[in-house]
Structure formats: C-alpha cells, structure tokens
C-alpha cells in the first residue's frame, strides 16, 4: 500500500504566530483520511499548503512520490470551507469556467457536466444565476466543480455544512463512490459522527502540532479502556451491585433495554479477561447485555485534546 500524499515536517509561521509546527501526515492511496482538530488548530493552513495556496516555511509535500508542482492542481479537487460562487454568473458558464481552470477542455467539461448534472438532478439549473439558488443548491454545484476533473486527491473541508440531511446523505454516498472508484479523500470536519462513518485514517491537529494519527481502528484500540457495559437481571439489584463492586471497578450506567436489569459499566484491569467477567456474572443472574465499550471518535478527540 503506497501513500498518495505525504507531508514531511511542514511548518508555517505568520509573523509571530505559528500555524503549523513540523506536521507530518501520510495519506494512504484509496483511503478516506480524516483531518481533525479544534478551530484554529492549523487544519486549513495544512490544506492550503497541499493546494499550493500557501508556501510552507519548512518541510515538503509529496504527491504520488513527487514534490508538489504547479501542474498538480489538476490532480487535486478542493472544496474549501469558505466557499462561494460568482453570484451574478450563470451556473453553466460558471462551472465551465472553473472546469477549464482545472485544465479540462470545454468540450470534455460539457460532457462530464451533463453526466453530473443528470446524476444530481440539477440539469435545469444550467441557465440560472447563482443568486437565484438556495445555499444547498449552490453547494451541490460546488461539489460538482470539485470532482469534475476526476482528481486523484479530493479535499473536503466541512463538506456537509449547509446541506439538509437528505442531500448530506447524497453527497456522502457520492464521496464513498468516488473512493471506491479509486480516489483518495482528505476530509476535514468537526462532525465526529461523519468521521466515524467515513474515515479509515485520521490525524488530529491541535495548536499547530499533530498529536495523533493512524488507522481509526488502531487508535480506537489504543484508546479503549477495557470497559464493558453489562445488564443483569436480579431480584435485589442494590445488593447485587454491591457484591459486584467489591470484586470489580464498577459504575452505574444507563442504556435502552426492555428488561428492568441492573446496568453497570465494569472496567477490567489488565490481568482480567472478558471471559472471566462473563462467567462470573452468569453465576449471579441472567445476563441480558454484554458489550465492550469502544471509544467514539468524539471521545478520542476530546481526550487527546485535553491530554495535551
């Protein structure tokens, strides 16, 4: 597995302010890579470096093993967070213009636009001006502009903001389909549930430094606390809770269930196994629920930021 994009020790200062401090990331080919971080962490600066909008002070970026050059803009599709279109220009003219700026010929751009406009069912907007469209409609057009030149690398900065759930889903499916067709996606967002759904690799940037990166499953394994959520039916729940807490590290929890069971979180130490816990519990009552608690991306995000 080769990396499509590698950034090596990229630094960028704006006057006295350090926006990026020796940040390195590796984006594997064909992955959806989540670039996460609180506001002002330096995500956008990193994305701008990759797009050659901003030149780094130090470090370098490789795309497909080559140092970034100006012709690489044709291989990258970028949907910035601060996005807009020329308000008084017609949709068709505008997308043709932007497609040609990405190096497509006019004829080729027209063919591809027809495909995409039919696909997203926006064909009849061709002669409308942007100012006549709603924000969500304009976003769809921006999405088309971003992917039209079939770039190897797609960068989406908060792609779902401004979409209603139906269109957000539509766009999400399109992103997954593009990935399946061979594109690599960098995905910058605050919305952790979409990270959970889409990303297989993540990097977390906080205060200009990268504090965490890797495969999402590896990171989750690393951040899991060996805690199990259990439900056990018993006549005297208070007594049972007392008994269990003497043997294990427990805390009361709650989750949806049909039974009126005792609900606990049980944290195991390193030398205790899940099987030991389960067989112990079966001696106390009927176990209706037994799940290992996997940290959510949200938990990891908050914890990693806090620890720093």
């Amino acid at each position, binding site marked *: 597995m080769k990396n499509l994009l590698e950034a090596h020790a990229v630094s960028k200062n704006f006057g006295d302010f350090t926006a990026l401090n020796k940040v390195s990331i590796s984006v594997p080919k064909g992955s959806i890579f989540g670039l996460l971080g609180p506001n002002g962490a330096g995500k956008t600066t990193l994305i701008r470096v990759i797009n*050659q*909008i901003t030149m780094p002070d130090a470090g370098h970026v490789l795309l497909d093993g080559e140092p970034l050059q100006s012709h690489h803009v*044709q291989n990258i599709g*970028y949907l910035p967070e*601060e996005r807009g279109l*020329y*308000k*008084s220009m017609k949709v068709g003219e505008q997308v043709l213009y932007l497609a*040609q*700026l990405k190096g497509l010929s006019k004829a080729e751009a027209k063919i591809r636009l027809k495909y995409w406009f039919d696909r997203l069912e926006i064909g009849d907007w061709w002669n409308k001006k942007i100012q006549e469209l709603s924000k969500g409609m304009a976003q769809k057009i921006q999405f088309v502009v971003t992917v039209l030149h079939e770039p190897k690398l797609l960068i989406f900065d908060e792609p779902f903001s401004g979409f209603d759930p139906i269109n957000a889903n539509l766009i999400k499916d399109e992103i997954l389909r593009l990935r399946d067709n061979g594109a690599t996606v960098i995905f910058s967002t605050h919305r952790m549930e979409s990270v959970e759904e889409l990303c297989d690799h993540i990097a977390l940037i906080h205060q200009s430094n990268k504090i965490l990166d890797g495969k999402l499953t590896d990171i989750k394994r690393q951040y899991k606390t060996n805690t199990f959520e259990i439900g056990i039916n018993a006549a005297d729940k208070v007594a049972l809770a007392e008994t269990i807490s003497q043997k294990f590290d427990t805390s009361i929890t709650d989750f949806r269930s049909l039974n009126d069971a005792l609900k606990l979180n049980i944290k195991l130490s390193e030398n205790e196994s899940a099987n030991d816990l389960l067989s112990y519990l079966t001696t106390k009552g009927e176990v209706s629920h037994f799940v290992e608690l996997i940290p959510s991306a949200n938990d990891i995000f908050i914890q990693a930021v806090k620890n720093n």
Partner: protein
Amino acid sequence: MNHLPLIIKREYLTKVRNKSFIVMTILSPIIMIALIAVVGYLSQLNNNKTRTISVLDESELVTDVFQNTEHTKYNLLNNVSLDDAKTIVEEAETYGLLYIPKQDSIDALVKHIKFYSKETPSLSVISSLESKLENRLRDVKLQEQGIDLDKLTASRTKVNIAQESFIGEKTSKIDSYFKLGFGLAAGYLLFMFIIIYGNMIMRSIIEEKTSRIIEVIISSVKPIQLMLGKIIGTSLAGITQFVIWIIIGSILMTVVSAIFGIDLMQQTPQSEMVQQAMENPEVAMEMQNLIAAFYNLPIANLIIAFILFFIGGYLLYSSLYAAIGAAVDNETDTQQFMLPIIMPLVLAVYIGIFTVIEDPHGTVSTIFSFIPFTSPVVMLMRIPFGVPIWQQVLSFLLLVGTFMLTVWFAAKIYRVGILMYGKKPSYKELIKWIKY
C-alpha cells in the same frame, strides 16, 4: 499552466454583460449631450433677447459710438434731465440707462459716468460699454493733442514672431495652445481612466472576496495570474466603454445640432465679441495656422508615447487598486488607502496644468515627468512641446521598473489579503503581509 486568456475573457464578458455597465455605457453620453444641448439652447435663448440700453449723453462726445447690433439696441435720449430720463427708462422697462454728464475735461468726465438699472447689470454689458467709451475718449484726447487718427491707425504694425527650433521645427503661439490642449486632454483622459476603471478593478476583487469564491479559484490559478487577468479584462471593458461613448457621443452631437439647429460649439456668452474678432483677417489667418499646427505636432512620437505611457501609468495604478481591493473586506474600508493613490494623481494633473503651461522644460516639469507616479500624466503633457527621446525612454523605463515593483508588492498583498477575512488591515499589517 497559463490561464490568463481564460480569466481575461471571463472578466471582460462579466463586466460587459453587467446591466449597470450597459446602462451607464448608453446613458452617459446621452445625458452629457442632453446637458450640453440644454445649456446651448438656454444660452441661445439668452442671446436672442435684445437688450435696449438708453443713453443720455450730455457731453455729446461719444454719441456716435453707440451703433445698434443684433442683440443690443441703443436708445439715444436728447434734451431730458437725468431724473426724467430715469423715469422714462424705468417705465419703459428697458435694460438700463447710461449717463454721461457734461464736464470741463475728460479726466473729470470719466469719474461721473454712471449706469442706472433695475437689477445689477451683466458684467459683459458693462465691460463692453467701458471699452467703447475708453476707445472713444482716447481718440478724443489724441485729437485734442493734434494727432491725426488716420496716420495713427496706418502706423500700427502687427508683429508675429516666427519660432523655429535649432533642428528646424517651426512653431508658433497657436502651436503652443494646440500642444497644450493636446497634452491636457491626454493627461486628463488618463486621470479619468485610472480613477474610473481602477475603482472597478478594486470592486471586482472585493466582490470575489465577499462571495468567497476566491479560495476555489486560487487552488487552480496563481494569484498573480488572477490579478493580472482582472486588471487586463477590466481595462479592455473600459476601453470598450470609452469607444462606445465616443461613437454614441459624436452621433448624438451631429443629430442634436442638426435637429435643433444649435451650434453647440459656439455658444459662449461673449460670442458677439468673438465673432467680431473672427472677422479680423489676422485671426482668420491664425485659424488656418491651427490646421498647420496639427501637422506640426510630432504625431508619430505622440501616438506611441501616448499608448505606452497610458498603458504603463494605468497598469501601475490599477495594480495598487488591486492590492487595496485584496486587503479589505468591503468598500467602506478602502477610504484610508485611497488618499495615497489619489494624491500623486491630482498632483500630476496640477503640475501639468500650472507648470507645464508656464515652462514645459523647466526643472519642476522635468523632475515630475520622471517620477513614475506622476510621469504618465506630466510626460504626456510635455511631449507635444518636444521632449528628447532619451528622456522619454528613461522615464518610460522608470515607469516600467516601478510597475514591476508595484505588481510584485501588490501580488504579495493580494495573495495574503484575498484569504484574510474579518480583519481591518492597517498599513502596519500590510507591511507584515509582504514579509509572509
């Protein structure tokens, strides 16, 4: 990759198709011509009105100078007292009464000449009366001293110094006026062009920022390409507008003067005096000289210099406008940056008007025709008077050098500024951006 033609095309088409641009392009010359026509029509009305001036000449020295003309009638009063004359004039509601009393000497007489009227009389009427009286009284005085007026008239000699430069270029006074007119027109045109279309460039960059499309564009093109594309595209739109203005303007001018029969060019309040002067054969000769003067101008030099300095000066200033557009979020924030741009422009025009007229090759004019921020305007005003080629070339090279410097500087501000939102930039901030 070179996207410049694509950007220029888009900028040009967007500008040209813009509704307010179209409306302005068509309406401006119509409004201008309409204004001129109204003014012309009104002043014609004014001139068609015949003024009647009553004259009570008790001295009987000047009576025969008051000959009726097309617009002024003189009503000579005899054998009435001043008070009666006043009553007569007031009741007749004519323009006014000129009173010349009888005195022992002319010197005493002139102190007592008076003009009575209901309203304050027009300045041109009074001065025309004054010059009539002055001429007449001078003749009377001369005759008193025994000088033969005919001989005096015959002895008048008109001197017209023919001017020629050492390399044999003939010039004349009328040439100078012509050159001045040409220079002023060129300089002023450049000034207007910079202000109108520089602002247009600035606004279109601000629009790109506020619509937030800039980051999408800038991920495919270099900022400097985008900036140059905008400058060139807008300039082409500007030239188109100018050409249309000139065409519509001249068509309308012809049509209006044909329909209303108003000679738009000629209606000045003193047209009567001008007409009198025109009848003078010497002036007519000068008019012919005027046409010769046009051919005397260094035309090839002028045209080339005009094109080069116009483009150079315009690009220099428009790159500054572009930088300002990139630095701010909205038009109200541009004020603080406008002054340093407008100042040298205004200065250039003033220097052109006041010192180039006085002395086209003096120290001040020469120095300012080399300083790049004033050189386009000042040099364009100087060139009709003949500027050595080496000076023109040096000045142009300086202009191009400075232009490259400002483009570099503007591009720096541009590439940082276009991605900067919500910050009200100060000069300090801008200098920091250049270092990024």
